[in-house]
């Protein structure tokens, strides 16, 4: 685990820029960090998250790859075997699946297979989620596939401050980390304040007493908006890490409120909400006032953009579920 810069640039930046600054810091901190992906060099990535980095660190460290995701992750694994810390950008969520074998059968298993001899400090950055009116395959939320895969760690950032620090922590981790970047929030602005939590900790972003809203990535802001709009006193927890789950923080919150609504964009069936509901019920069987409810994308392939306002959880659907939870 290499050092993570704790000092941060000041001022207000977008989440995309915060990631850019975080990657810049990671490249500066460790010469073995190598960024690789499609169009990340001169173009700076389709979201400009790597803007200027190839110019600064050269084409050997910010590598425009051939267009093949299995190739990107597969060669990143080889680079890691040679002692590098590759950071792969998958251009959009829907293009990660050609790399699925390399991620699930290779990257996730090599440390275990080698009984710890081979380390896989590989970060896979994925802009994910909907809400930007994109064409198909550009709005997916694939997190459950990775959370179910033993051997991977999975995190998601919701604010510029977290984005800036979490990307550095992910790169510095000696384990493979899938970093899910909420692409609809790339243009959200915020201060780069210091971050107290470790990469694996959840955070209560708004304390409340009536019901806990659990979210991560793009849905944190949606839940905060819902909490603001509600007449109830809602607590909002940003999970930040999906694997491992910071169950302590979550259990403490729900123990206090007695009610919980999990919110994510991914389809409901076996989305991360399922695991949270199962675990919370195991831990708090006698304390829950209502079952853990889920507000999620429907069990549809991601629909055309002009239907996404229906498909994606929004403030109203969150509050509707809170009402149901309060009704128990």
């Amino acid at each position, binding site marked *: 685990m290499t050092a993570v810069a704790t000092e941060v640039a000041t001022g207000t930046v977008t989440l995309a820029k915060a990631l850019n600054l975080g990657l810049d810091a990671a490249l500066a901190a460790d010469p073995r960090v190598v960024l690789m992906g499609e169009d990340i060099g001169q*173009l700076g990535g*389709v979201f400009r998250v790597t803007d200027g980095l190839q110019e600064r660190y050269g084409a050997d460290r910010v590598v425009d790859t*051939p*267009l*093949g995701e299995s*190739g990107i992750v597969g060669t990143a694994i080889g680079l890691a075997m040679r002692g590098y810390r590759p950071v792969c950008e998958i251009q959009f969520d*829907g293009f990660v699946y050609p790399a699925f074998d390399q991620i699930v059968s290779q990257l996730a298993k090599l440390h275990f297979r080698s009984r710890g001899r081979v380390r896989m400090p590989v970060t896979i950055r994925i802009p994910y989620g909907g809400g930007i009116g994109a064409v198909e395959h550009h709005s997916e939320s694939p997190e459950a596939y990775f959370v179910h895969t033993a051997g991977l760690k999975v995190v998601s950032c919701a604010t510029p401050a977290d984005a800036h620090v979490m990307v550095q922590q992910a790169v510095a981790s000696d384990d493979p980390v899938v970093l899910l970047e909420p692409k609809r929030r790339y243009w959200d602005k915020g201060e780069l304040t210091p971050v107290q939590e470790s990469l694996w900790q959840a955070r209560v972003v708004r304390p409340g007493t009536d019901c806990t809203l659990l979210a991560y990535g793009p849905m944190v802001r949606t839940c905060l908006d819902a909490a603001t709009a509600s007449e109830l006193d809602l607590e909002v927890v940003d999970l930040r890490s999906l694997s491992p789950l910071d169950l302590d923080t979550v259990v403490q919150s729900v123990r206090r409120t007695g009610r919980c609504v999990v919110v994510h964009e991914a389809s409901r069936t076996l989305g991360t909400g399922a695991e949270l509901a199962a675990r919370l019920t195991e831990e708090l069987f006698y304390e829950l006032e209502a079952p853990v409810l889920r507000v999620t994308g429907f069990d549809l392939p991601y629909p*055309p*953009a*002009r239907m996404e306002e229906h498909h994606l959880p929004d403030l109203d659907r969150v509050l509707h579920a809170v009402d149901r939870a309060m009704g128990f």
Partner: protein
Amino acid sequence: MTLSSLDPSLALPPDPSLVQLLTPDGRRVTHPDYADGLSADDVRGLYRDLVLSRRIDAEGTALTRQGELGLWAPLVGQEAAQVGAGRAMRPQDMAFPTYREHGLAWTRGVDPVSLLGLFRGGDHGGWDPAEHGFALYAIVLGAQTLHAVGYAMGAVRDGAVGREDGTAVLACFGDGASSQGDVNEALVWAGVQRSPVVFLCQNNQWGISTPTSAQTRTPLYHRAEGFGFPGVRVDGNDVLATYAVVRDALDRARRGDGPTLVEAWTYRVGPHTTSDDPGRYRPADEVESWRARDPLARVRLLLEREGTGPEFFAEVDAEADDLAARIRKACVEMPDPDPLEAFDHVFVEQTPELVRQRDEHAAYLAGFDA
């Protein structure tokens, strides 16, 4: 050892073996292996297709600027590659496009209006693939090439291959997609099964910001030999040559003589999509040098030299204006998708869970009216 492999200045020079039948200045040239055999009327037909394809594309870009579409993937510069290939197809043939095949779609009789839904966000593809012999657009690079080979396996099993009027399949992909595992598996399968597939690689020199030199150091059409079938590079800005080469390859395929890889050497004159900013990665003079090889201009020069009068060109332009107006109108009038209908399209046989989710959402929506 240097790491210059991704230097765009390594862009491959045109191969001397490039098949050309019409020069950029509109002169016919002969080729030992290929002849288009087209009448003056046929060439006028192709010219019309080129103009209309370009106009469809221009409307797509304009509608995006006006906020009517979320995105558009411009074909400008690649009209000849697509029209030539599309007109080489027969009705029984099937094409598997990428997301940029608007000109090919036109030749397959797909109403340009139905191309818009995908880019407007109203649907994921608005035409019937079986009706037009034109599959839905495919965005995940290369995946469709395997579908093409599978479809061809079906045609073989139907007894529709192995004769002059047999069925052939066109599998489209780009220079960038050539690096994907799926494209190469498609080459494996087609090669070993001698599938009736023509792989049409439109090498437009770029995959977003990635030059072809970052995908391969050898001409792409060479790839085919290693999979056991022929590859040929054609001037993709020459509609006559593209037509002749693809027709020849499709006819080989339909006769049962196996696959061909056709690399159409062309250029993406516009941005990758309307969201792209090519100024960040490629020099303006490169674009200019390709504009000099414009696929429409050379056909017009040929037609004019061979006696087609100005009325014809005026007629085509007027037709393009009408088409553009129709596209615009239809686009803005396109209804938004019914949010509840989507639940019924997941499966042929509906599931209780989707019914439940649909009903819940319907009740939720009804709550707002109340």
